[in-house]
């Protein structure tokens, strides 16, 4: 445009004013017009996803929220022992050195509250619940509660003496410290327990003695075995996926059926068939004895230990590695490797420098998928893992079903979830979630 041009003629009055909001033909602001025009489409889109949204909220967000809630809240003591709970709340300062004698045993008023509550517990039949709760932290105390509750009606002042008469364990300072922490409805103690830590009599956090640590070593074992299983799956799946992607359709379809066959078989059947194969009197050992590789007394123990868990889980999770790898490999045209070869690359250079890097999104997806599935795996380790092949989920199940310590189970599960999310985040930082291809 020439700079010497005369001033532009006046714009027609209805022309767009560059400083004001842009308007549509009828004068409404363009933004309003646009959102009005697209509202219907947006409402329809929302209605279409609404069922899924409701389903996800109901089946995913709610249970996980419930679990997280349970891991920090437990009212089995506070709800059933109201008087003593109130007394603990009022006598905040009474710690280890509390009590008239300074021995950590409170005075008569606390025992009176205890006796009141035991009577209530007798009537409501809740002594067992309270005893179970205290028993989490101090084993052997459940019977103390049930026994004392049975005799609660006969208790008369002075209650301290009367209760100590029923069972002298009531004079244990540790018991009182444990009851105090159990009386708090909201507590982080279950997380402490899940990390092999506890509060001592003084209320300070300390690690539990070496020989009682179970959870942290189990977490470590779970992560390590899962990583190992993911690695083994990758090693086995890569060539298979490559072959699947390269074979003519007619053969690759047959091979794909073999890959998917395990999916169509019950998990239990697959796991038990491994038991048949690998146990010390199983097919593989029999074969090796028959061939003479091992003697009859030297049968290899491949079942009911870590080896069993690793072998069976690698097999069961293999399809989850093959499928993402296959879907990525199928999209890599054969021309890339040909181009590399024509440019002078040996077959192995062409593989490592050209083919392999392009499969990384599939590797990332497969490894992450298998790893996360393995971390939470339950049935297979329970059946074939013996004691050395148990994973953290087996312990979670134990607390859900046997010890009924749901809060501890929830805390363990929450820690597992946090760990997996941390890994996911790390993966995102290192490789990028966008780079992932599941299928």
């Amino acid at each position, binding site marked *: 445009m020439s700079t010497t041009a005369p001033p532009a003629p006046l714009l027609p009055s209805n022309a767009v004013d560059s400083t004001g909001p842009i308007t549509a033909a009828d004068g409404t602001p363009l933004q309003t017009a646009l959102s009005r025009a697209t509202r219907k489409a947006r409402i329809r889109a929302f209605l279409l996803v609404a069922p899924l949204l409701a389903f996800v909220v109901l089946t995913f967000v709610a249970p996980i929220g419930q679990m997280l809630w349970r891991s920090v809240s437990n009212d089995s003591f506070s709800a059933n022992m109201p008087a003593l709970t109130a007394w603990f709340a009022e006598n905040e300062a009474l710690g280890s050195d509390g009590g008239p004698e300074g021995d950590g045993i409170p005075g008569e008023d606390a025992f009176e509250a205890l006796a009141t509550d035991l009577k209530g517990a007798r009537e409501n039949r809740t002594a067992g619940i309270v005893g179970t709760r205290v028993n989490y932290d101090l084993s052997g105390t459940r019977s103390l509660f049930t026994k004392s509750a049975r005799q609660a009606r006969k208790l008369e002042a002075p209650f301290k003496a009367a209760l100590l008469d029923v069972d002298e364990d009531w004079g244990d300072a540790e018991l009182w410290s444990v009851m105090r922490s159990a009386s708090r409805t909201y507590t982080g103690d279950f997380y402490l327990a899940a990390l092999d830590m506890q509060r001592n009599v003084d209320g300070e956090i300390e690690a539990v003695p070496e020989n009682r640590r179970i959870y942290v070593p189990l977490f470590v074992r779970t992560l390590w075995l899962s990583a190992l299983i993911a690695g083994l799956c990758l090693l086995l799946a890569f060539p298979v996926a490559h072959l699947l992607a390269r074979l003519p359709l007619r053969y690759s379809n047959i091979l794909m059926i073999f890959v998917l066959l395990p999916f169509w078989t019950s998990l239990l059947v697959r796991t038990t068939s491994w038991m048949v194969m690998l146990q010390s009197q199983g097919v593989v050992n029999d074969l090796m004895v028959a061939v003479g590789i091992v003697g009859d007394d030297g049968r290899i123990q491949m079942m009911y230990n870590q080896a069993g868990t690793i072998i069976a889980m690698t097999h069961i999770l293999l399809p989850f590695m093959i499928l993402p790898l296959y879907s990525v490999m199928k999209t890599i045209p054969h021309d890339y490797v040909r*181009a590399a*070869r*024509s*440019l*002078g690359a040996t077959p192995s250079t062409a593989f490592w420098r050209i083919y392999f890097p392009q499969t990384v999104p599939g590797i990332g997806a497969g490894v992450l998928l298998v790893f996360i599935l393995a971390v939470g795996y339950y049935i297979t380790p329970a059946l074939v893992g013996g004691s050395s092949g148990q994973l953290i989920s087996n312990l979670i199940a134990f607390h859900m079903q046997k010890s009924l310590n749901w809060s501890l189970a929830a805390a363990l599960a929450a820690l597992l979830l946090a760990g997996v999310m941390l890994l996911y985040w790390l993966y995102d930082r290192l490789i990028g979630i966008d780079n992932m291809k599941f299928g």
Partner: protein
Amino acid sequence: MSANAAEVSGSANEPMVRFKNVQKSYDGETLVVKDLNVDIARGEFLTMLGPSGSGKTTSLMMLAGFEPATHGEIILNGRPINDVPPHKRGIGMVFQNYALFPHMTVAENLAFPLQVRKMSKSDAAAKVKRALEMVELPEFGDRRPAQLSGGQQQRVAVARALVFEPDLVLMDEPLGALDKQLREQMQYEIKHIHESLGVTVVYVTHDQSEALTMSDRIAVFNDGVIQQLSSPDTLYEKPDNSFVAQFIGENNRLQGVINEVRGDACVVKLDSGDEVLAEQVVPGGTGTRTTLSIRPERIELDPAPGACPVTIDGKIEELIYLGDHIRVRMNVAGTNEFIVKVRNHTGRKPLAAGQQASVGWDPIDCRALDALT
């Protein structure tokens, strides 16, 4: 750089590539390439042209080493290469979909062949830079292939195939994915690179105008057999058979029987009864069925009496105005698909559909080829 370059310096007369009785079958039942015999001279631009499925890519892949020949020998620089793996053949290749490595930048793509040859970093960088300048993309070294337009990717692919200085480059429909305008520009550029570097190029296309503009020689493939191998003008003006005449450019076909042989010429009695003089190409004496082939631009409409040795009467069916010329569709000798191109000049006679008009030509331009079945 390539190892082959030094070996061959003494044998400049011998062909660079020789296909000797090469056959190829994928399934053991049908031959996709049937007895291929071609010599490709050093520095030549040879195009393989043919319809889809005629075996062009297969021949190229055998030369590059990605498909084994079922029978016969392929000789490169005097050495049989049937058992030489592709990476030792030192042949550059441009793929139809370019095959640029998506996880590498343009510069890394170009450096790849140099790296695998263990060239020093600085030498490689200099060569990459020169190659990018050659294809007029000096600024694009840091981009990923996905960030380039189709034409730019194509240039990078050409640069990559040439950067390690092979003396033979294969291109399999490298321009197939580009639009018409870009194709024409790239045809020119590839031809220009070929001339300035002096490399031997074997080029595959099924676009005949591309083949005509670029090549020194064209091998016309059909059904696994080379129908004719000659320079573009010979191919166009002196097709050896009906397939080539039909495949390259437009041509009018008239069916008939040879009535009389007069040296290189012959008199053909058309199925409509007219008798015309033609150049005899198809072997055989009197009574041989033949297809006459005449290019539309070699035909004179309403020639002055005595101006053309051959004239036949016809009728104008349709006129198509094309600016520089007018396509006249006529009914001549029993066919109404007879096309005449009339140059659009000021003095031309007015034409109208339905008008009676005669057509005439020089017998030299009318070739009696094998009869179309």
